[in-house]
């Protein structure tokens, strides 16, 4: 194995375990993240695999396909994080509202 494979494969595996546990409540995101990380391992270990797959999809270069997949993963992850933030903001608003009503200054 090449040095880059020794570095990337453990990183991908660590991310799979770590994110897999943290994303327990979000099955769609977990599936997407695992899919991309497994693809990352396969493309790292079997260097030509991305080119074969890219050719099959009509993309041409394997590296282009990896970029497309990365952008897709980044976009979906950002959206999921944004939605999570919105849910947290909603809960925060409820707490702030409850407190404001309890501490009202009446005429």
């Amino acid at each position, binding site marked *: 194995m090449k040095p880059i494979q020794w570095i990337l494969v453990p990183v991908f595996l660590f991310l799979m375990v770590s994110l897999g546990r943290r994303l327990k409540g979000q099955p769609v995101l977990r599936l997407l993240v695992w899919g991309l990380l497994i693809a990352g391992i396969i493309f790292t270990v079997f260097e030509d695999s991305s080119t074969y797959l890219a050719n099959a999809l009509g993309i041409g270069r394997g590296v282009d396909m990896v970029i497309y997949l990365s952008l897709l993963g980044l976009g979906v992850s950002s959206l999921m994080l944004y*939605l999570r933030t919105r849910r947290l903001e*909603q809960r925060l608003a409820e707490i*702030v509202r409850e*407190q*404001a009503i309890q*501490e009202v200054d009446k005429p």
Partner: protein
Amino acid sequence: MINPARICLIIPAYNEATVVVPLLSSLLKLGYQVVLVDDGSTDNTKAILSDHAIHYLRHRINLGQGAALQTGMQYAKGLEADYFVHFDADAQHDPKEIPKLIAPLVEDKADICLGSRFMQAQNEVPFSKRLVLKGAILINALFTGLWLSDAHNGFRAMNRKALEAICLREAGMAHATEILSEIKRNQLRYEEVAVHISYHGYAKEKGQSIWNAFNILSDLIIRKIFPL
């Protein structure tokens, strides 16, 4: 003639210390109940309002106008009032128009009345604002199915039925479209009422920027696809 003490004005305020005192004085003189929701102001709003006969609620942090209105509405449910009016703190609305706005509620023709600045000729709406508002009318119609003559007009009045039914979850300015969705969801009777909006210097300075319209639109699209 309705007793003004049975009318509750809900006023969201964020850093409006310079204009809110004369506004409150005129509203209190007219005999209305006032619920002011200070949305985490960092100016001296709290200090200058301490001697006013109002219901003063304060958000510890700034959440947005929609969240402030929801706080005011939730609190107002416990007050002895029949009609509830959303009123801006930046003196854009005319207190003398409140009786006109609630008239359809009193006559039991509607559950909620929405102010419209485009129903009377004397409103000189700046061109850029007019353009954005016309776009917002279209967007409101696409999102809610309600075709109105105005959009994002903060001057509204509702009866207790509407107050109990409407629940705003949009903390920011997208609440103005969400209210229309709530009207539709709860099958509330609505009516538009011509009102005057004053475009004086302070209100223009504090008002929504045109670019904010894009933020509102993106909030609406995301909410439509991924409801809270």
